[in-house]
């Protein structure tokens, strides 16, 4: 057991932390949000240059062979900066499907484009009534020659508006909620059968509703047995989100503590009021719990034991959800009115935490999974 970073990891952490600190200030971020896709193409190029877009891919394809720890380092820094670019969508989600599901040829074709920043991906897996159940798939894929024809609707596709290619879960067989019969299909966003309505999300990121009307796609991996790959990739994405959330929570606590030292009411710093002190301590405790479980998620995200992985990831998501809600709500309450404004940074973290709680399954959704998985000890 060794909690220290390797030298490479430390270098990576330093460079990403510095990038975010130098380039992703609150005002810069506002500017990025106003750009074409709601994020900065320039920063995206920077990520490519720093090798962040190739982090998890094998060196054979021009990647850097990083693992969940490296991804976590990046995501934690991105959490601090409230980074807007489609890193999770492209590298973790889309890239994850490619890494775990695609053939060698497909990887050879696609990975170098991702690494270079030339290919943006999005995973389209949510449907109107699927909620967070990956197996609840009504979109259909029908074999047609060497490819598939996709029909149906996907919802809240993270960065689906700017993606060059979409990875779509669709059913080649089985009933609507069967685990079998699900494939993942790569669809060109410019395909005539694809129509997209993009919109900002509550936290200032972007998503899209996407319709497929006889859109053409190619299967990534087993066209009827891709659910395990999707599940694995979503678990990796949850682990990454946990790290992002820890970054954001840490900032919220730091900003709140700082405010408590500065802000005066009734003739003294509000941080001198014992009630507020203890509430800051409970935020600190919530952050420690979140850090611990994000670490567990990172450690388990790459486990081949799907059952143990799922349990640990769900447990981590529960902790992150609870800690994020607690820290976010308390950060706002301890600040008072100022944190209710868009001009102040804390509210933006709070909104991001609230969305993270909803992504890939709410706290209750994952608690139910842990509850039914037979005990953690």
């Amino acid at each position, binding site marked *: 057991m060794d909690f220290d970073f390797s030298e490479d990891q430390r270098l990576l952490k330093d460079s990403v932390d510095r990038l975010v600190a130098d380039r992703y200030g609150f005002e810069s971020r506002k500017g990025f949000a106003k750009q074409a896709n709601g994020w900065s193409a320039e920063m995206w190029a920077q990520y490519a240059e720093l090798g962040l877009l190739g982090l998890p891919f094998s060196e054979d394809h021009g990647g850097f062979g990083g693992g969940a720890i490296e991804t976590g380092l990046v995501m934690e820094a991105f959490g601090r900066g409230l980074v807007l670019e489609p890193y999770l969508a492209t590298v973790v989600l889309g890239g994850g499907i490619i890494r775990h599901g695609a053939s060698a040829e497909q990887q050879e074709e696609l990975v170098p484009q991702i690494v270079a920043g030339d290919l943006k991906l999005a995973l389209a897996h949510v449907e109107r009534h699927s909620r967070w159940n990956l197996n*609840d798939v009504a979109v259909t894929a029908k074999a047609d020659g060497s490819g598939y024809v996709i029909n149906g609707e996907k919802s809240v596709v993270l960065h689906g508006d700017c993606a060059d290619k979409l990875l779509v879960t669709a059913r080649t067989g089985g009933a609507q909620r069967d685990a079998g019969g699900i494939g993942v299909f790569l669809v060109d966003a410019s395909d005539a059968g694809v129509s997209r309505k993009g*919109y900002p999300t509550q936290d200032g990121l972007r998503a899209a509703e996407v319709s497929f009307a006889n859109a053409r796609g190619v299967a990534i991996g087993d066209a009827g047995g891709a659910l395990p790959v999707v599940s694995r990739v979503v678990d990796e994405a949850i682990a990454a989100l946990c790290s992002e959330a820890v970054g954001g929570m840490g900032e919220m606590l730091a900003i709140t503590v700082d405010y408590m030292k500065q802000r005066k009411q*009734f003739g003294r710093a509000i941080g001198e009021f014992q009630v507020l002190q203890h509430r800051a301590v409970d935020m600190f405790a919530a952050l420690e719990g979140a850090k611990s479980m994000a670490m567990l998620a990172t450690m388990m995200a790459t486990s081949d034991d799907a059952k143990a992985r799922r349990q640990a990831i769900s447990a981590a998501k529960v902790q992150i959800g609870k800690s994020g809600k607690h820290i976010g709500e308390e950060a706002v309450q301890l600040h008072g009115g100022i944190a209710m*404004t868009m001009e102040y940074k804390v509210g933006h973290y709070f909104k991001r935490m609230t969305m993270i709680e909803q992504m890939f399954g*709410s706290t209750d959704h994952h608690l139910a999974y842990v509850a039914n998985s037979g005990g953690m000890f």
Partner: protein
Amino acid sequence: MDLSFTPEEVAFRQELRTFFTTAIPQSIRTKVLEGQHLTKEEIITAQRILNANGLAVPNWPVEWGGKDWSPVQVYIYQDEMQLNGVPSPLAFNTSMVGPVIAQFGTDAQKKRYLAEAANLDVWWCQGFSEPGAGSDLASLRTKAERVGDTWVINGQKTWTTLAQHADWIFVLCRTDPTAKKQEGISFILADMKTPGITRRPIQTIDGGHEVNEIFFDNVVVPAENLVGELHRGWDCAKFLLGNERTGIARVGTSKARLKRIRELAALEFEGGTPLIESEKFREKLAAVEIELKALEMTQLRIVADEKNHAKGKPNPASSILKLKGSTIQQATTELMMEIVGPYVMPFAESDEGDGRNETGYGPEYAAGTGPTYFNWRKISIYGGSNEIQRNIVAKAILGF
């Protein structure tokens, strides 16, 4: 002891319900029940209908349009308004400046201001909070200096709700800088069109524009705009803040929301099953229902007990109404988000360009869920934060 409503009270409730559900446009009431925002015109429309029927200012002196209702009647009036999505008469007019003028104002002031406040012919806003004075309201620094027959006001107010619609503002100003904190403050009225008053919108985290900063730069208003005694504006403020003892819990609003949550939870699915059939969801809903029932009973107990408390000496349990009422209202926003699941995420700006999320993707009731959750965090902050309420109760029960 008889805890059921009397036949007269039941009839009173029925009469109000009939009036509210027939006289106030359905479109307005639906927006309120769905937690959507009303336009200025809708708010004015609703209040004028109430006022035309003598129901806008029941809490005022009878002479000025009040009703002299029993506390239980006041409770029923508020409950029925909230249950049926009737917009409350604008609080700045009817619970704040109106009662203050009725209590502390001169006859001339009463004649000039009260009727038009009741009818929302004039829209008032509240100039109390300042950037440096949040929970510590009495540390305010906006000052008014007597120059000839006028007051010259300089300073800054903030969190001024709906000031974008306002015609007039009532301002707490420091008139005696040498006096102790809560002394030397005066309550002064100002026409928002007076030169030197500027407003800056504040965008809140729900995306909306509900509050404003107001700047006073050598704003000159007539001396007669002082309400009550010079330097005794804190009395007006205390009277105003303590004025609304019931209603703050918004029991009726939460009741209506819980009913709506139960309806909507039948429309969203998890694993092919409506959410309302999930034992877990039902228990969460039931837990909030029980809290609300307890709050309603507490409110009724306080209402009934009012006769035992001197005016201005509220039962310490009153602060519990704010504490519990805010927590419950906030809990309803969480249940609403839970219902729509991933559809809480889209943020589609309204056509009005005011930054609100009005249309949305997914089910139409999804659009308001996130913004309302964010916006309603304010409920435990404003009107005396929950921390301040706890300080008040602590003082009452411990003496420290």
